[in-house]
């Protein structure tokens, strides 16, 4: 009687179970049980397959002490030695291979098995072995590109690093919110750091741009101890090369690799920053990768959490000795979401014995950290960083650009005149008439229902520019709350309602007096908008709108 009675199991369970049965007779007994019982074809196939496999293995069983290596492929050798634990048998095999075909790959299989069988004994009780460092060029002389270790830019070892540097991005003359969020976080991290390690390291804000100096006060208020800024009219828009060159020049100033003339600066006496933090914005992502590459370090991109802690590391490439563990201090732990936040990885950037990985750099997803309250009483040191920018860096010219945000802002108007699909009979005239009414007010603008924007109406060119998503009122558009909201030819679906419901007075114009908009309008003028809108315009121009409304309020 076999251990497993297949008739008691579903096939899905049998698959994995049967893999552990190595006895062909037992399998044959199982097969018989199945044939007498449920006689399922797939189950039988499964068992038969296994029998075949087990017997194959049985046939191929070989004695490593006597086997003729010439009969075996390298793969066979590899499989065979995996089962052999006796070093002498293995050495004998190795000798026989050398005497026979002398295959390099077969020998290395046997050698590595000897190592794994005996290596453990040799190292027991002894000090762990140093990992020997061989530069990649020497290690792989035959390769053009010894990529095992990327060739470095700097090759610095054991240099001094201090401070947390924050790249403070500006856009269109504004310090972007994530810059403030990063400064707040950096302040918090470094305050704790200085306390924990009894240090006096700073938060350094870097400002680069055509208006860099405008933001100095702000970045200090948000937490910087030191502001390093460079201003140049050519830096109005972000460009890769000049921004990277400037940042790296600042980071290296006063250090081992400082540019000529900046070997000694009053504000910095270390090699490079200990930590760098960039915003994970479009430009910040680009800059962070370029800077960290140039500074010969790594980058944890798109992080959502940062903290500084010691870390116990056992990776021999970092520790320098195999099997050893070493505690690294002051390690920036950079947490980043994978898989939309399904998982998180924490990235550490750690020096190797023969190469520094500093600054420890991260880019930070906007909104990850709280916006701090600015303190305009704070003091900070300011460095106007002087440096000549090479014309060569500006060979890429930005000829044209669009600003996508901005757009039409309908909020803040006294009056919004919105039109809907009621204009369908003559869309161009509908927009024209709505614009006339807009013009009759002092502070007014045109809104549209989603129905108009998604229609196939064809508009004449002079009004076409007004028919854009930017003017959409409603759930998927703007929400407005003017004094007066005029909704002409809009039925008043719930999605539209949420965009205008807070208006003080809602005046609807509709041919259908039972349209949903009636439920949330203060006034409903029953009529064709093509007739009503011009009359409204006239009334407004004559200063009689109020009277007109009174008349229709019954």
């Amino acid at each position, binding site marked *: 009687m076999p251990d497993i009675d297949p008739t008691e199991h579903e096939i899905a369970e049998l698959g994995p179970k049967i893999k552990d049965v190595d006895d062909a007779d037992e399998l044959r007994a199982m097969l018989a049980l199945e044939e007498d019982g449920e006689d399922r074809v797939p189950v039988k196939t499964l068992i038969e397959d296994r029998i075949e496999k087990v017997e194959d293995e049985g046939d191929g069983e070989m004695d490593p002490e006597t086997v003729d290596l010439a009969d075996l492929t390298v793969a066979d050798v590899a499989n065979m030695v995996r089962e052999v634990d006796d070093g002498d048998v293995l050495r004998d095999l190795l000798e026989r291979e050398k005497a026979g075909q002398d295959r390099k790959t077969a020998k290395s299989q046997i050698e590595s098995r000897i190592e794994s069988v005996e290596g453990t004994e040799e190292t027991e009780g002894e000090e762990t072995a140093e990992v020997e460092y061989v530069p990649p060029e020497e290690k792989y002389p035959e390769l053009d590109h010894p990529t095992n270790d990327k060739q470095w830019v700097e090759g610095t070892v054991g240099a001094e690093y201090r401070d947390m540097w924050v790249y403070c991005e500006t856009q269109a003359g504004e310090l972007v919110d994530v810059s403030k969020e990063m400064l707040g976080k950096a302040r918090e991290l470094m305050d704790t750091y200085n306390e924990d390690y009894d240090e006096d390291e700073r938060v350094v804000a870097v400002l680069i741009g055509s208006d860099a100096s405008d933001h100095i006060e702000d970045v200090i208020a948000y937490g910087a101890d030191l502001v390093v800024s460079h201003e140049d009219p050519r830096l109005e828009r972000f460009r890769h090369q000049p921004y990277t060159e400037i940042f790296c020049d600042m980071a290296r100033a006063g250090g081992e690799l400082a540019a000529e003339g900046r070997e000694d600066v009053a504000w910095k006496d270390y090699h490079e920053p200990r930590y760098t933090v960039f915003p994970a914005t479009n430009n910040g992502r680009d800059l962070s990768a370029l800077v960290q590459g140039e500074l010969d370090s790594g980058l944890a991109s798109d992080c959502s959490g940062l903290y500084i802690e010691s870390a116990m590391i056992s990776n021999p490439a970092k520790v320098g000795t195999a099997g050893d563990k070493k505690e690294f201090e002051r390690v920036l732990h950079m947490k980043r979401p994978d898989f939309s936040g399904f998982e998180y990885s924490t990235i550490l950037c750690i020096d190797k014995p023969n190469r520094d990985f500093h600054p420890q750099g991260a880019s930070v997803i906007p909104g990850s950290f709280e916006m701090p309250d600015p303190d305009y009483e704070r003091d900070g040191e300011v460095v106007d960083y002087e440096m000549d920018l090479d014309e060569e860096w500006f060979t890429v010219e930005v000829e044209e650009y669009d600003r996508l945000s901005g757009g039409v802002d309908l909020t803040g108007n006294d009056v919004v005149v919105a039109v809907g699909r009621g204009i369908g009979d003559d869309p161009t005239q509908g927009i024209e008439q709505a614009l006339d009414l807009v013009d009759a007010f002092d502070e007014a603008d045109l809104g549209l229902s989603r129905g108009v924007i998604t229609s196939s*109406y064809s508009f004449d060119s002079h009004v076409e520019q007004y028919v854009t998503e930017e003017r959409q009122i409603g759930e998927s558009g703007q929400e407005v709350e003017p004094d007066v909201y005029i909704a002409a030819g809009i039925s008043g679906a719930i999605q539209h309602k949420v965009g205008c419901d807070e208006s003080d007075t809602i005046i609807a114009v509709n041919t259908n007096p039972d349209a949903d908009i009636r439920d949330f309008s203060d006034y409903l003028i029953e009529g064709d908008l093509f007739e009503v809108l011009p009359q409204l315009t006239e009334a407004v121009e004559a200063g009689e709108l109020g009277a007109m409304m009174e008349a229709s309020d019954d």
Partner: protein
Amino acid sequence: MTDAVEEYEAVVVGCGPGGAAAAATLARNGVETLVLERGVDAGSKNVSGGLIYAEESAPYTIDGLFPDFREEATERPVTENVIHNIAGDKVKSFDIGDLHHHDTAWADAVLRRKMDSWLAQQVHERTRETGGGLLTEVHVTGLLRERGEIVGVTTEELDPIKADLVVAADGVNSELARDAGLMDWEDPDEWFQGVKAVVDMEPGVINDRFDVAPDDGAAHLFSGDLFDGVRGGGFLYTNEDSLSIGTVFHLDSIAEEHAEPHELLDSLLTHPLMAQWLGGEYDEREYSAKLVPDSKKAAHPSPHKDRLVLVGDAAGQMQAQGPIIKGMNHAVTAGALAAEAFADARARNDPSQAGELYEKKLHDEGVMDKLRPTGYKVFGQLGELSPVDDLSNAVADSAVGRFGVRAAAGLLERAYSSPRMVSMIPDTKLPYVTLPTVIAEELGEPVTDENTVSPPDLADRIGDLTYDVGDPHIELVDNSFEASGTAVTACPVSAQDFGGGCYRDETVKTNGSEEHLVSLDTQPCVECGTCAIVADTEWEHPAGGKGVEFKQG
């Protein structure tokens, strides 16, 4: 921080009953399984008429895979089954308990949001144990290929994911099945369209009005002349504290008759027969719609390619057994069989065999014969040739036919209860409209109740649904009325002379000439897929977490 592609042993796309069954079975076999669901929650994209069956002959049932299923995830079991033949206000009702009970271990009414989100929890727990898990709000857009061979999936939110097995359980509008070229959206006659209203009702009121015990429930079906000649019928199922009332029609018939699905639903809701159940007040919780593949024509006989297997609606595995529609049970079986096939194939060290094995299992386990019955091939399709249909209609409607109906009332009731007879029913007017109408006229009693229900209009139905509008996910390729005008009526959230729907009929004047066009706004879209078939569109699902969110389903 590496650019290596994420890799799992199995990726299951969609966490409805098919995906859940596949994932649970994979996990039970120790397979590392990632489940991707595009809704904010499993079930938020899912609609069904509302009955899930457990068949005695099926190798897998949902409660076999998820033991607490009936306690945790379903509404009321069906203990009473009636079909009503309707002509005007005359109604003849047949008890079809025998048809219902044939091969049925149990059948429960379900609401999909509750059911699927419960399943998803179980699936997440089980798949986590084998190194995977469930991720919501991920829209799988297509297949990842290497040298022309399917090796994984691409998504809108994540980097591509490789897998030894890709289970497409992504529903009736499966983008994976279409990417693989296994399914299409070409023929309206391969599809039904269902619309449904979930109506609020106190449990005690349900017990009274349907005369059922608190733990029992009823299923009523409706056919006859109340749907303007459109081929199809209606249903009413009792949930714990609501009713699921809906209509299901052949999509080709909806298209031909330019029928408005929401109006057909209203025809049922406002019929005098319904008054006894609906009473005076009517509170509609949710309006929903979905396409239903007709497995007789649409079920793919070989639903796999490379590492991809299709299960459930994605493979057209929705069986219309006369008036009874069975879909979820087949999805469960297919999902589990696909998983089993992969486990077998893996045990033989050749995971690539999974598709072939799955196909073999579908046949061996009798699933395929239920989906594509041979009787239908012989008789049903013959009945669909129009001269035969016209003749049958004429005979049934003639004095001779009517005499036969009167004489054979008992026989007819038995015929409706024969699974074999109903599996051969052709898709014509005869069984759906003519015969029930004649039956009701000759045998029926008038209903005297007055139905005062006034269902919400389409704008309110749309307004009550929850959306998160993303970028438009449907592109209207040809906006001429000839090419895409059918969508204005056939789309369940659009209507002639209604500006708030998806598809709007527009006459556009340009330079003196006039064009009859259709415009599209995907905001109110319920993602049923109707327009993919009846209009000229590029159809995709919205991004993960975007689009309609059903609270009942």
